[in-house]
C-alpha cells in the first residue's frame, strides 16, 4: 500500500478529492467566468494527481499516458474557451455570469 515512506494511496486520494471539491466550491462561489474557468482547470488537475498515484501503485505507465491526453484536452479547451470569453466580453462588456444569463431556464 505504501507509495512513499508512510504515504499510502489513500493520502493521495484524499488530496485529490480536496482539490476537486475546491474546484467545485470555486465555481459555485465566484461569478467571474474566467475564475470559474480556472476552477475547471483545478478539477482536471485533481483527477491527474489521482491517476499518477494509481500509476505508481500499479507500476504501469498507462495512467500517465491518460494524464497526457487530459492535458491535451485541457489545452484545446482553454484555447476555445478563452476565445468565447473574449467574444462575449466584446459584445456584452462583462464576464459576470449573473449578467450573462440569456440561456438560463
Amino acid at each position, binding site marked *: 500500500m505504501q507509495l512513499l515512506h508512510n504515504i499510502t494511496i489513500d493520502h493521495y486520494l484524499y488530496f485529490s478529492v480536496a482539490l476537486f471539491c475546491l474546484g467545485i466550491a470555486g465555481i459555485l462561489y465566484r461569478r*467571474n467566468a474566467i475564475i470559474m474557468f480556472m476552477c475547471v482547470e*483545478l478539477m482536471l488537475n485533481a483527477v*491527474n494527481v489521482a491517476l499518477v498515484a494509481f500509476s*505508481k501503485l500499479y*507500476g504501469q505507465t498507462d495512467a500517465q499516458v491518460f494524464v497526457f491526453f487530459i*492535458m491535451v484536452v485541457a489545452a484545446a479547451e482553454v484555447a476555445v474557451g478563452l476565445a468565447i470569453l473574449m467574444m462575449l466580453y466584446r459584445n456584452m462588456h462583462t464576464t459576470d455570469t449573473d449578467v450573462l444569463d440569456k440561456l438560463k431556464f
Partner: protein
Amino acid sequence: MLTEYAFWFLTFVALFSAIGMIISKNPVYSVLSLIVTFFAIAGHYFLLNAQFLAAVHIIVYAGAIMVLFLYVIMMLNLNKVDEEKRSVWSKAAAVASFGILLVVISAAIGHGQSQQTAIAAASNFGTTETLGLSLYKDFLIPFEISSVLFLSAMVGAVYLSKKEQYN
C-alpha cells in the same frame, strides 16, 4: 522520511493556494495562486517518479495555459478588484456544498477496502523512454486523433476571435 515531509509540504501549499485562488478579489492574484498550485502538483509528480510528466506539466500549465489566462485578463482589462454583489446566503451555500461533497467522497474512500498492494515499479518507470514507448506503441491512434483535436481547436479559436459583430 524526507519524502514524507515533502508530501505534506506540497499538499498544504497546493490546498492553501487553491483557496487563495478562489477567495482573492483581484483576478491577477487568482492566476498567480493557481500557478503556485500547479507547481506544487508538479512536485507531487516528481515524488511519484513521474519526472517527465512533471516537466510537461510545468511547461504546459504554468508556461502556456496560465500565460494565456493572464493575457486575456490584461486584454479585457479585468485586473481591477471586481465588486461581486452577491448575497451572503449564496456564498454560504457554496461553502456548505463544498463541505458536504468533501465529507461524502472522503467517506466513500475511507470505507473502500483496497486489497491491492503496491507493485514494485521498474527502475526506468516514468522516464521519457518508457512513456514514449507506451505513447507511440499502445496509444498511437489516440495520439494521432489528438492532433486533429488540436487543429480543430486552433481553427475554432481563430474563427471565434475574429473582429465581427454576431448580434
